[in-house]
């Protein structure tokens, strides 16, 4: 899809974005190695406005992890969360014209769409039937974050991760990957709610120091 002059004008700082629009493919491949990528959000907004499907790929590469977690907090099942993420991404694409930067950041906007999709899902008949059958079996969803098999390509990075204490990893997993809310973590790990936030922060700080 070509660059639309009027769309370009709609956006602030357009020449800056135009520069990135040309280079976004090369940039997105290096994405995981970029520390300061303040432009990702700009690039996605630009591509969305231009109705470029590259926007969805960029969102997926940069935000799927966090958005998946947001959805999982609500639907509690990974397979359902996956479906909801799919639906939410399609909605993001369709609603892209309605995004207004003045009303908040891209992430906030996407989180709202994901949450609404997830809530819709919990109200669906499929979801309710599933809840009932699981209750009958009395299955308790317990995090086994530490037991997850690391299939990452980055062996060096994995080695570094070994330096991260297990309880830090557990906190990161629960909060950012397994959809646990702070009160849930507090209950799960038997830590006071007020402490959960600071511990998570410490864990993340540790993670960042490792990488």
């Amino acid at each position, binding site marked *: 899809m070509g660059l639309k002059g009027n769309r370009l004008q709609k956006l602030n700082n357009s020449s800056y974005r135009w520069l990135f629009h040309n280079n976004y493919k090369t940039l997105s491949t290096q*994405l*995981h190695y*970029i*520390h*300061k*990528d*303040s432009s*990702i959000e700009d690039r996605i907004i630009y591509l969305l406005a231009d109705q470029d*499907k590259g926007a*969805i*790929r960029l969102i*997926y590469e*940069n*935000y*799927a*992890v*966090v958005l*998946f*977690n*947001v959805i999982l*907090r609500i639907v509690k099942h990974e397979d359902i969360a*996956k479906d909801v*993420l*799919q639906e939410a*991404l*399609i909605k993001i*694409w*369709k609603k892209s014209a309605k995004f207004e930067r003045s*009303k*908040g*950041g891209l*992430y*906030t906007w996407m*989180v*709202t769409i994901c*949450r609404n999709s997830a809530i819709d899902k919990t109200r669906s008949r499929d979801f309710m039937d599933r809840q009932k059958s699981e209750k009958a079996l009395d299955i308790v969803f317990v995090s086994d974050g530490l037991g*997850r*098999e*690391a*299939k*990452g*390509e*980055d062996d060096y*990075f*994995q080695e570094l*991760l070994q330096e991260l204490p297990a309880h830090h990893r557990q906190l*990161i997993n629960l*909060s*950012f*990957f397994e*959809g646990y*809310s*702070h009160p849930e973590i507090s209950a799960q790990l038997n830590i006071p709610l007020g402490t959960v*936030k600071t511990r*998570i*922060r410490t864990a*993340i700080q540790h*993670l*960042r120091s490792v*990488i």
Partner: protein
Amino acid sequence: MNIKEYIASGILESYLAGELDKEEMRTVDSIASLYPEVQDQLNELRVSLNRYAAATGNLPDEETLKVVLQKIKEDEKEHFLNAIDGSETNFRRVNIVPRWTVAASILLSVSIAFNVFFYAQMMEQSKKVRLIAQENALMAQNIEKVDQQLDYAELRIAHFLNKDNVHVRMEGSDLSPKSYANVFWNVKSNAVFISVDNLPEPPAGHQYQLWAIKPGQAPIDAGIFDHSLLVQELKVIKGDVIAFAVTLEKEGGTPIATVDQTYVKGFLKKS
């Protein structure tokens, strides 16, 4: 605002973890837009989480993205097809719409057929009218000609019958043996009339001229005349004329007769 404290509070981690509600998130957004430090922290946090996910095999699979892109593609296709369908029905509606247009178009066709028929008829009639008009004109011309001839004939008869008229018949000369013309000379008024009876058409730029001939004198100009008019009054000639003659002269006539161009000539009967 103490930004360092704000960052240290762990609110940014809560923001990314989905712990904050919409309003709280918007507050973070506005602070991040005011303080690049906060924005940087958020970006770095997100990148760290992505790296962690990559290292622990928690990255979302490529398959999900493919499905999403495929669905978007199908959706666009459907949208496009719907747009086409929509436009088709619109066209159909326009075609169907008012019934009176069908009746109107039938009436129009009938009307056109009649128009063509009547027009053809009218053309034929006007052709006939034109022909008749031509015939009429021709007839009128003929009548006029006949009338004129009759007038001349009457005029000549009148001249012949007029007791005061001396009649001179001029016979063709060697130049034009078959030619002839008549002169009537009124002895009372001395007026000279010529009756152009049989003179050849004068060549362009030439005209016939009548001469009165008196003994011992050069021919006297009796006037030029129009070849196409049968009887015309010319000049007044007095005296002892013995003969009249017609010569061919240059247009406008001449004071001295070109005698070798004499076409007709006639002598007065001696009384």
